């Protein structure tokens, strides 16, 4: 049952994709700096039929600037013969049969048409439906070779992007579980290359149910280094977008997305569970004592990741990513106390002596292992032996904290 959260969250990401494509506003004119990626672009004509619904009107308004057709113009001027750019259909641009005879639609002056049927060539294309623009492209026109992935509608170069990931859920937690939030800032230095800095705070980090099950049933547990918990992390790095594309949801609407890959380095603060939540019974009264964690210091952090950025509108995007935070873990101190410190503390505890005169290392936070909690009546001295167990056999590991990041961003 443990991976349930992992796959559930990934499956739950599908509505987010629907949200991305469904919420996309009408596309603004293509940014001049946006590069074309696949094939040549065909200049799209524009029509201004008054009978079209408001949505169409908005699309026309937002379409790339092209020469405006004169409404009274009944037919387009003679069009060039189909050339390499117009006659060969793209893979998914199978042209529908062109109508013959006169049509009542209003065609723009620069509408690309073929020769008339009387001349023995292909029929003239003047139907209003065929001249209709869809996202700036005459997709209904059988004579126009329209490439589906034509041009990035939104240029990233020079833009700033602020990304908030409200939900960051660890998906590979064998011995640990992390849930947090992250905030990243991305500066798009070039169209496909960006610099990023970010921070993450795990507001829930604890050992997994699996680890607790092993402790309970078979008296086994992960090594301290393997169950190190990441409280927060900060990193800087780069992000590249090697490819982009678009998809339709039920053939009805469009979403543009980019594949993003990122890498970076930074620092993270770690901790380790010393004692799980327990019930403390004192004088016939039971107190619930929360879990106790020990500080295990700051660690070097590496970060690699990848995912999708689904853009809707010029200024907003949704990001679905998987990132791996990699950190080396060596646990030889807990709350600054090493094995020698814990043994001295344990000896003093057994003899019921004060800790004041003990010779401890300078980093050892002895106050954390002395005294009684006024609320739960828990004697902190009882945790000394648990802390000692963590460092008794110094362990090291390289941890991969792989998390699913779901967030949204604003570009400006």
């Amino acid at each position, binding site marked *: 049952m443990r991976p349930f959260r992992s796959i559930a969250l990934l499956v739950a990401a599908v509505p987010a994709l629907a949200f991305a494509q469904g*919420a996309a506003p009408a596309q603004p004119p293509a940014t001049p700096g946006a590069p074309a990626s696949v094939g040549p672009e065909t200049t799209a004509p524009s029509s201004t039929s008054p009978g079209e619904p408001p949505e169409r009107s908005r699309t026309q308004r937002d379409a790339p600037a092209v020469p405006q057709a004169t409404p009274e113009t009944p037919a387009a001027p003679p069009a060039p013969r189909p050339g390499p750019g117009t006659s060969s259909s793209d893979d998914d641009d199978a042209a529908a049969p062109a109508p013959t005879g006169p049509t009542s639609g209003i065609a723009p002056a620069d509408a690309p048409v073929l020769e008339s049927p009387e001349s023995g060539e292909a029929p003239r294309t003047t139907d209003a439906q065929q001249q209709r623009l869809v996202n700036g492209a005459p997709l209904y026109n059988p004579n126009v070779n329209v490439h589906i992935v034509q041009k990035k509608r939104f240029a990233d170069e020079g833009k700033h992007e602020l990304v908030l990931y409200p939900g960051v859920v660890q998906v590979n937690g064998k011995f640990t579980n992390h849930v947090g939030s992250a905030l990243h800032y991305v500066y798009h230095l070039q169209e496909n290359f960006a610099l990023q800095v970010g921070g993450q705070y795990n507001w829930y980090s604890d050992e997994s149910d699996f680890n607790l099950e092993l402790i309970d049933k078979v008296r086994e547990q992960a090594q301290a280094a393997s169950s190190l918990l990441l409280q927060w992390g900060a990193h800087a790095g780069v992000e590249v977008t090697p490819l982009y594309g678009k998809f339709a949801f039920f053939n009805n609407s469009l979403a543009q997305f980019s594949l993003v890959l990122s890498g970076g380095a930074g620092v993270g603060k770690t901790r380790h569970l010393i004692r799980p939540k327990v019930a403390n019974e004192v004088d016939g009264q039971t107190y619930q004592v929360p879990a106790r964690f020990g500080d295990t210091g700051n660690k070097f952090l590496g970060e690699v990741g990848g995912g999708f950025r689904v853009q809707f509108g010029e200024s907003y995007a949704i990001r679905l990513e998987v990132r791996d935070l990699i950190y080396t873990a060596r646990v030889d101190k807990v709350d600054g106390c090493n094995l020698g410190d814990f043994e001295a503390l344990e000896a003093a505890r057994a003899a019921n002596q004060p800790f004041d005169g003990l010779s401890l290392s300078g980093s050892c936070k002895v106050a954390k292992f002395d005294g009684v909690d006024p609320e739960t009546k828990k004697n902190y001295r009882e945790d000394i032996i648990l802390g000692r167990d963590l460092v008794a056999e110094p362990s090291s590991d390289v941890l991969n904290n792989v998390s699913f990041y779901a967030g949204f961003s604003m570009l400006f």
Partner: protein
Amino acid sequence: MNARSLRAFAALCISLTALGAAAQEDGVLDSAVVRNRLYKPAGHPELSLSVGLPVQTYLTAHYFFDVGLAYNLFDTFAVEARAGFAASRHTGLARSISESFLDREDKRVTDELEDLWRMNLHGVIGARWAPIYGKISLVADIPVHFQTYLWVGGGLGNLKRESVIQCTQVVDRAAGVCDNRTAVDDRGSATENYWVKETRVAPVVSAALGFRFFVKEQHGIRLELRDWIFKDSYRVNLQRDEWEAGNPTGEPAGSPGLTHLVQFDLGYTYSF
């Protein structure tokens, strides 16, 4: 699934689903954008082969080999039957636990560990819903068409379980030996072990999120994240003296929960 997991999952689902529904009501996008889809699977049967690797291992690891037969009722909807075999094993962690627990005599009463059932033969029938059709620009000039789909179905699975706690014939307690190996250090020489074993046939539910990349007209590559789900079953309050004497002990767990086998599937599809 514990209460915390359920709450988190439910909150995320509700928030994402609600946002998506609200956004789609806006209808701010123009209709018909990725038009004239190049690949229209409607009306075509297809045959697929897939291999599944474990995303995360705990006490068991599975490697799935499946054959699927599907019929595309529409471009976005298909029914599919899948059957196959899963090669499985105990992980190194499970083996380590089994060896050390033999000598842990201070633990005289315990419960069996969760999620130790391993699947082998299995078959499911399900529905595949592919509402997303798209295309990406790969290395500038190569457009790749794909579908994104959800798959949900159910069927039966043949399961087996080998305990890592209950050894009915301890051969060498200190060395953690519970089999007939010829030398203590030579695990491979064992032909039989004495761990308690169980088998059963159980209902299985499978769900997947996947991508199908079209390669020309009839071929396709599928990438999936697939979860195989079945009800767990194990015993609790086991007495060491009883199981080491070869006697049944303990009682079934009241609410054993569900076992999830999450796999990354790589598949090939041939469309007729």
